[in-house]
């Protein structure tokens, strides 16, 4: 187990370097550089000397690999660099935005689990009965409904029907928990609802599979109550694929919240990443991708380790 862990952790650094290198190259290969974005439509009037000066200022006159190498060297020193556009340190920009995105993602995933597991299990247990039809229809509806649309509906009809608007200003959880939760619960519910569609279907399928297994039949033959059979015997075995899927959804903690952050005016990282890509703010994009990479790699590791907890037959060596 220790050796396995060390190997996995050892792979984290090259994985992240590989990911950031790919992103560094890819974002610079996109047509239109940071200067084009700053100039906008007026780029057509700018003389070549001005453009050359701006290229020097943003170090765009150097090769991509030189730019990347310098970024990695700074990173090794613990410096994420500065935004090309705002000129402010990226670390401080991210520090202000990470908590909102992490909270929204976490609450969203919690809502997703809270919706998906009961509905998925009920669907499986009452297979081909009205509850199942209802659960499956709900899952398809949630999968098919874009979260931006739900968000806009919530904002527009929230006011028309209930005179409700989200608080104008976002407050951190530790500053003002009431105002924070008032801002966050609806976007988190919408986010969770969208994710829950997939988890619901997966839960139903895997629970159905294990309900036909011998050990479930044995449990029932022993005279256990149905609730104990489902929750004690079937569910733990059905959860492995669900946990895998859940682990994959952790990426929502970083990037999946873009639209909802925008609609509900939440100062998170999703919107910042989108703007940075549009503006070709290369160091910011690289920093956020690095951070996303860290979260995804670590969550995959945690998911792998969880397998052994859920299924004692799984051993790492």
């Amino acid at each position, binding site marked *: 187990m220790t050796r396995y862990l060390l190997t996995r952790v050892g792979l984290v650094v090259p994985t992240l370097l590989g990911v950031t290198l790919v992103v560094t190259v890819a974002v610079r290969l996109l047509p239109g550089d940071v200067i084009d974005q700053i100039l906008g439509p*007026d780029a*057509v009037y700018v003389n070549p000397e001005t453009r050359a000066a701006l290229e020097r200022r943003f170090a765009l006159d150097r090769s991509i690999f030189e730019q990347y190498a310098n970024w990695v060297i700074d990173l090794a020193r613990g410096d994420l660099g500065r935004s090309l*556009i705002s*000129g402010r340190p990226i670390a401080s920009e991210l520090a202000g935005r990470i908590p909102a995105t992490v909270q929204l993602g976490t609450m969203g995933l919690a809502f997703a689990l809270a919706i998906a597991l009961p509905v998925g299990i009920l669907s499986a247990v009452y297979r081909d009965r009205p509850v199942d039809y209802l659960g499956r229809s709900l899952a398809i509806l949630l999968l098919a409904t874009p979260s931006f649309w739900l968000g806009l509906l919530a904002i527009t009809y929230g006011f028309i029907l209930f005179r409700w608007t989200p608080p*104008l200003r976002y407050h951190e959880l530790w500053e003002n928990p009431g105002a924070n939760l008032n801002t966050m619960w609806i976007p988190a519910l919408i986010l969770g609802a969208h994710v829950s569609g997939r988890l619901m279907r997966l839960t139903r399928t895997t629970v159905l599979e294990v309900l036909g297994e011998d050990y479930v039949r044995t449990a029932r033959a022993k005279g256990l109550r149905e609730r104990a059979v489902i929750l004690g015997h079937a569910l733990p075995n059905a959860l492995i694929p669900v946990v895998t899927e859940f682990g994959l959804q952790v990426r929502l903690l970083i990037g999946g919240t873009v639209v909802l952050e925008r609609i509900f005016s939440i100062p998170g990282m999703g919107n910042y990443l989108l703007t940075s890509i549009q503006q070709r703010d290369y160091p910011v994009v690289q920093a956020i991708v690095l951070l996303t990479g860290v979260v995804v790699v670590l969550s995959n590791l945690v998911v792998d380790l969880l397998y052994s907890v859920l299924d004692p037959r799984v051993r790492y060596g």
Partner: protein
Amino acid sequence: MNSSDPGAPTGLPSRRQFLRGALALGLAAAGLAAAGCRVEPGAGRTQTPPSAGPRRGGTFSGLAAADPPSLDPYVSGSQGQAEFSAYSYSRLFMLKAGPNVARGSLEVVPDAAESVQVSPDGLTYTVRLRKNVAFHPPLDRAMTAEDVVFSWNRLTGRLPGSTPSVRAEDIQMVEAVAAADQYTVVFRLKNPYPFFLQKLADPKVFFIMPKETGTAFNPAEKVVGSGPWVLQEFVPGKLARFKRHPNWHLGPEIPYMDEVVVNVVPEYATQLSQFLGGNLEWVVVQGPDLKRVVDTVRGAQIYERPPYPLSVLNFSPREARWEDQRLRWAVSMALDRDAMLDAAYGLKELENQGFKVNRYWHTHIPAAFSEYWVDPKGPEMDPEAARYLKYNPEEARRLVQEAGGSFGTELHFAAANSRYGEPYRVMSELIVQYLSRVGINVRATEEDYNSVFIPQTARGEFNGLMWIPQTRVDPFAYLETQYLITTNKIYGRWNDAQLRDRVRQIQTMVDPDRLRREIRGIQNELLKKMYVVPMPYGAGLTFTAYQPWVRNAVEYQTFGQGWPSECLPYYWLDR
């Protein structure tokens, strides 16, 4: 609102009295709402009830759709950058605001300047500075000519180690700037420029920064200006909080309000809900939502914004086909501008709701510049020129046939998620349909704004047609960018020496009446030549709504992004 009348009869009213009273109150309220919220014909303003006079204090809850690109005003030339910088930084001049100023007025008033003297040849501007212009803390010192020259050098990249601002191109006409004494700055121009003071008033171009900028503090992290608002707090993605500058040179009475909080609210639907909920003092309203605003917020004040942005349909510089004038006319005459305005801005719906609606047609000068714009529907426009803007599909079809018959081409426009908004997208679809009806079979090419439209198409790398909006602070700038800048690939192709000479002549005019006459006159020629086709985008009605308690808001308006220092100091709150 609570009130008590000592002479009022006491005791509870009867049921009949109550119902009668309620009915009368309801009718009165409906009448007031109808009278108080309608957009006045032509004026574009609603009137606030008279009040005792300006009241000091309070916090103005404003909004921005995004963070400014930077705190440093010279990093970006965007509208968001200009507006944010205008809170805290002074300019030498600014656009005049006030109850008697015409909409779209280009009149300038001194900001940090005290006066200006222009030489008879229009080549030297001697600007005297006010002596009471104070920089914000921690500097707390008076502005001098040295700061102005420093800022100019920073703008143009003449400071050691600095790069030119993206807006340095806008002031190419300036040869040198020097401090004559502690409070006098002299601008020497290479050639006369008719709207030079407006250029200095443009918040996209020139702000005055203290000479300690870059050495004593980093302007990307700290704002030290001398404008009406002192930046107290900036939380990216969330808000910017400004406190009134107690020693503002146009004070001490103004700014009337103590504080302004600019909340970042990116989404239009959220902005609108927050305004309707009373959390924001103002919001830009799209036409179809106007009735909802007026119905929900009793006493809402509505300002009809001038038709300021101009957009033009450009012809590919790669294709010889467009040399044929008949095809350029056909493109313009194929478009039903009124119908496009109706579809994109919901004007018919507004009319049905009882609002007075104007349908402006831009020429090559935006309709907002009413002093310089010639109304194509009016008597002053040469009928021969005006006919090229009128919807005439039969004539357009005939011209296409004469020029060789139907053909296929492309229309390049920015994708729906660009910053141009819904009217632009709607009009793009309509152009395709209108042109196809006259034999110009157009394939719509919707392009990503950041990856394709700006870096490639806007630079002239396209086939067929392309349309792009642009905004300039003065009417001459439109002529200059289209017909004088030879590096501009799109317009440079025409190489019309006679037209260029005429624009150059306008450039040298210092007599305002002659200048006005010439700019009005050249619009006839431009329509006949139709090197670019003026589009109705930006000419539709858009509105700004203010809460009923925001006073002076509709009376103090300027166009452009300078309003935080031109208008906001005069607003006051009467909750």
